[in-house]
């Protein structure tokens, strides 16, 4: 069956996404309405959301009683931060113990061994920080580790992210009140109302399409046409895959991730999973508008990020439906038919366009799941992936994404307000040097975490030895790895022997700093702003929902964030592209 033309696939994908972002956005806004101190109500035709309380409230109350959480205990930003850190340390310890001692734990059907300390450090840090960068192959973990280690982390880390959003909304909805809400209540609500039900829905679709789902066995033995007996690892694929995609996680049970048939069996499952990646992050931006009482502002930010997302996806589609320079063989008379595009490292059930759209969905969020070999992408395609990283993964992760995006929005409001002769203010809160200092801390994290280790790695022989293709492409391999860690993405470009002590330690530290330094700075910003008065907006204020604002926002993201990485990109994909080879 021939695939539809690229432009059709592209248009269909973004149209469905836009509709889903709206619905999921209204839903998410409803989930955290009270916690965000907002008087938002869903539009009339979605008011049935409110009836869902009958199902969710008893479950939540049960969980509160079971765990001893008092949702009415409000926290200041410091208390909130402490709760985030304590909760995340618990996840880390759980993961570290399970990973190191999985050989002694049950449900180890195929007899895998424990991870080494440095690999366990990297893996635990990577999954605690919602990064899911894997320096091991998924097959080396037991079903127990996948289910009760990785699986639990995959729910709790996006829930941590979600719980940050209503607290940050309080920065703007509070009137001189330092209370940001209860972190644990927000985690529970995010899990019960958002992550669990939607993941369940996705998992059911995956199972219907043919994904496996079991915790009773470790492998399947198949008789294949060419290779005789093949042992294929099985596990809770459908369930893990659903939250892996929807929770911007990305670490698969199989090394080949969503390219394998058990994780991602059909074009339909591929479409569902591709959509699942950006829904969580973009619906959060939409919900932001609802929480702060200005839906059109939410739509304006969504629009700005859609522009970047769609532009880079367009570049990727052009790159991947074009020819792969490395496959154009001259001399021996053989030639590879590239009329459908660059098929190296891609699944035939998806083709270049769907793989390109997936690629930008995974790097346009902090997801990191892959359905094709990124290292086999063309230079142009690889450039779009790395550029998406440079913007801090466009829409970033569930929860944290909104906060990171708002750093750019605040910076834009700062400059924009000055340009119309007002002292900087965003959503009625004055922006002063105390907040701007922390905004810049967040913005500085990515360049510092990526570029300084990159400079060290490319002159360190041990790291150069890990490259598969020393040269421009090798530079990209390392750059991708550091970006993937420092933007909490987790996907692998591959082609880099990353299971070394050097990469385990460097990447492990990167994922932790990249996650918790911004969270700390952002909660501090929320604390400062929540305590301020609300100044009303007037005709002379900066409108945050106009095309001019969207334009300025895009300009700020490109110049302040992405262009900083332009020199590095020149040594990687741009250099490769313009030199005509790796």
């Amino acid at each position, binding site marked *: 069956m021939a695939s539809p033309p690229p432009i059709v696939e592209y248009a269909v994908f973004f149209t469905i996404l836009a509709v889903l972002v709206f619905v999921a956005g209204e839903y998410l806004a409803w989930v955290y309405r009270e916690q965000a101190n907002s008087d938002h109500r869903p539009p009339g035709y979605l008011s049935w959301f409110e009836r869902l309380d009958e199902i969710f409230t008893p479950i939540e109350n049960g969980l509160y009683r079971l765990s001893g959480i008092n949702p009415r205990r409000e926290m200041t930003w410091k208390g909130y931060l402490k709760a985030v850190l304590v909760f995340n340390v618990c996840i880390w310890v759980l993961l570290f113990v399970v990973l190191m001692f999985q050989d002694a734990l049950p449900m180890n059907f195929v007899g895998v061994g424990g991870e080494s300390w440095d690999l366990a450090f990297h893996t635990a840090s990577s999954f605690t920080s919602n990064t899911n960068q894997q320096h091991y192959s998924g097959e080396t973990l037991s079903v127990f580790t996948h289910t009760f280690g990785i699986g639990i982390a995959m729910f709790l880390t996006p829930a941590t992210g979600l719980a940050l959003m209503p607290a940050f909304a309080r920065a703007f909805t509070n009137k001189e009140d330092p209370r940001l809400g209860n972190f644990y209540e927000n985690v529970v609500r995010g899990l019960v109302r958002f992550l669990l039900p939607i993941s369940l829905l996705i998992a059911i679709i995956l199972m219907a399409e043919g994904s496996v789902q079991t915790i009773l066995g470790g492998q399947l033995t198949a008789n294949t046409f060419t290779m005789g007996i093949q042992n294929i690892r099985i596990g809770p694929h459908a369930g893990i895959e659903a939250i892996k995609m929807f929770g911007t996680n990305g670490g698969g049970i199989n090394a080949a991730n969503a390219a394998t048939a058990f994780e991602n069996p059909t074009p339909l499952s591929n479409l569902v999973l591709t959509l699942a990646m950006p829904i969580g992050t973009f619906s959060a931006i939409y919900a932001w508008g609802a929480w702060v009482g200005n839906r059109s502002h939410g739509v304006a930010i969504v629009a700005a990020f859609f522009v970047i997302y769609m532009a880079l996806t367009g570049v990727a589609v052009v790159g991947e439906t074009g020819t792969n320079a490395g496959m154009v063989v001259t001399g021996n008379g053989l030639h590879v038919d590239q009329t459908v595009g660059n098929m190296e490292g891609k699944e035939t059930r998806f083709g270049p366009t769907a793989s390109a759209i997936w690629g930008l969905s995974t790097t346009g969020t902090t997801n990191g799941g892959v359905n094709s070999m990124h290292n086999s992408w063309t230079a142009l395609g690889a450039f779009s992936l790395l550029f998406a990283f440079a913007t801090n993964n466009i829409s970033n992760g569930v929860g944290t994404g909104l906060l990171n995006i708002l750093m750019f929005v605040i910076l834009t409001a700062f400059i924009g307000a000055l340009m119309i002769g007002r002292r900087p203010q965003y959503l009625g809160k004055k922006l002063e040097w105390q907040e701007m200092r922390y905004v810049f801390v967040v913005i*500085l994290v990515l360049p510092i975490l990526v570029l300084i280790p990159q400079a060290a790695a490319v002159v360190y022989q041990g790291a150069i030895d890990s490259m598969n293709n020393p040269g421009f492409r090798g530079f990209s391999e390392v750059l991708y790895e550091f970006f993937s860690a420092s933007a909490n993405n987790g996907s692998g470009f591959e082609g880099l022997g990353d299971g070394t002590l050097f990469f385990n330690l460097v990447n492990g530290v990167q994922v932790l700093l990249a996650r918790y330094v911004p969270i700390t700075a952002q909660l501090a910003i929320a604390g400062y702003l929540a305590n301020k008065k609300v100044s009303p907006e007037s005709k002379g204020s900066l409108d945050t929902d106009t095309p001019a604002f969207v334009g300025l926002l895009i300009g700020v993201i490109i110049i302040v964030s992405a262009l900083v990485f332009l020199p590095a990109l020149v040594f990687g994909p741009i250099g490769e592209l313009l030199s005509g080879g790796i």
Partner: protein
Amino acid sequence: MAEITVTIDTDQQKQAISDSFAKLDPQYLVKNPVLFVVELGTIIGLVMTIAPGLFGATGSRVYYAVITVLLGFTVIFANYAEAYAELEGEAQADSLRALQTEAEGKLLQNDDVDIEDISEDDYEVVASTEIEQDAVVFVDEGDIIPRDGTVVEGSASVDESAITGESEPVIRQSGGDRTSVVGGTEVLSDRIKVEVTSEEGESFLDQMIGLVEDAQRQKTPNEIAMTILLSGLTLVFVVAVATMFFFGEYLASFVGGFAGLDVAELVALLVALMPTTIGALLAAIRVAGMTRVTRRNVIAKSGRAVEAAGDLDALILDKTGTITTGERVAQDFHPLGDADDADVVRASYQSSLYDETTEGRSIVKLAEKMNGKVQTDGGQSASEELDEPGDSVDAPRDVSVTLDAEGLSESNFVPFSAETRMSGIDLSDGTEIRKGAVDAVEEYATTVPGKLRQKSNAISESGGTPLAIAVDGQVVGIIELQDELKPGIADRIAEIQKMGVETIMATGDNQRTARWVADQVGIDEFHAEFDPEEKIELVEDIQDDGKLVGMTGDGTNDAPALAKADVGLAMNAGTNAAKEAGNMVDLDSNPSKIIEVVGIGKQLLMTRGSLTTFSVANDVAKYFVLLPAILAAAIPGLGAMDILNLSTPASAVTATLMYNAFIIPLLIPLALRGVDYKAQSGAQLLRKNLIVYGGGGLIAPFIFIKAIDMLFVALGVFQ
């Protein structure tokens, strides 16, 4: 308003240039991280000029010298911008100081002498500088008040135009709100005793000017936030460019014939990418903004106050003095009984021709204004309809009437007397015209039309004052008087509303008068029968809504509210308590000037924002020029990025650095003048400034750099 203009002469130019070198001191420059990094870069350039091969670089000594010189120029131009603005500010302050003329004072030997009885024997004439604080001086008619002080006895009209530029003399008297007098002003009539309140050189004005000078040196809170932003950007670019050196080493390991990146060129790239333009102009923008305020004779005690003015959400305006002049003027003529428009206009005109009161003159003026217009509606007079009084401020009805001043010369003007409560004129033909309060005329007249009461009540209810006018004992009509609006005030209010600032009028007058005035000028909200002591509550109420509020005031009872308000503009003619409480003082004592200050505050912030956008947007072009140039040897294919098609890499680097340095002096005039500001909504302003400064920032460097490169080609350098 007297605008003080200051010209910078060549000596001061030289001073500014020498200051720019003095400011190279790293200890001073470290306060501006952007420029400090450029200075460090210059030092690296210098080192490479002396030892070109130091970092394995291969460029020529001349090339490095050129880079070093251009980097040095960048810092010096930046320092010059600051030094020049500071000198202009100082000159402004000096010109304010010069307003206090040297004078002699009559020091009283014994201040118990009654003011009327003071003779030459009672005082000693001394130089003003010799008068000590708390001494009492006598100031006679025609004398210059020697020093700042308080009137302790007497009352006099004082010409304060030397300080305020206002030609109208003001009354200064002991007791109440009008006791303070300023040194250097002249007593026009009467005599007063003044207690000197300041030490020599420490007059109120001196202290204020001192504050202005301090304020010009202090970074404002917004500027601190901006400095953090620029430092953050600088740090980002330092990381981005410093790591390039190592990337270059890596590249050198597999690209033949390439030995690594040139450190001097990397420094050039760093300086080009850093926001040097705005970093250089930040201080000049602040000083110039403050100077623009000073130039309008307003002393701002802090830069924060000026910025806050730009950010005001609400302005509390006093009615009298700000919106109205405090005088009542003729607004309309209403005929009554058998009389028509022409009758009442003629009678009013004639009766007032020799009436020198403001009211009388305004009646003459209005009558003349109405006359001569062609009667279009067939003489249908408004006499029988009770038309809305006061709705015809700008367009008086057309009335055709012969206003004949001749023949009046032999008539007899009857001035106002308290007894009759009327004034008027007895014409030579015996006609007797009288005008006055309605009940007084009613008493005097023999024929009173039934509608007189009804009409006059309607006028009172609309906030006006009715004057009845009678000819030979027959009431012919009513002259409607209303508060006189300050010229152009309605436009100013409309302008400030367009900026998104709410206008609130406070007045002790009754509801009706307040409403009329508010309606006339389009005030958003008014408070009538307002006690000045309630002002503080009003300010607090507005602030509780999160709004920033500005106000003006002159009395001691205004002081708490002036201190509480985000912008408190005190009148120089007011009490010292008010002047100390406010964060700005208007030397002209013109309360409506607060509207101008709002515009200046906005302009200050806008200039900062727009030049930042311009400076940062320049980076796009600089990337496109410098990356291909610097990496020409390493990645020749990168030439595809060189969309300007520049002649040689050295030429590209030099042209970019030249642009980067010379854009600073080119923008100094803009920084000092401020970007153009017209009252507009936020959305319009953003769009406009984004196109001009954002779009301009993207394009300008491409044009300039290409032009410089073409010049180099023509001159044959760097080829």
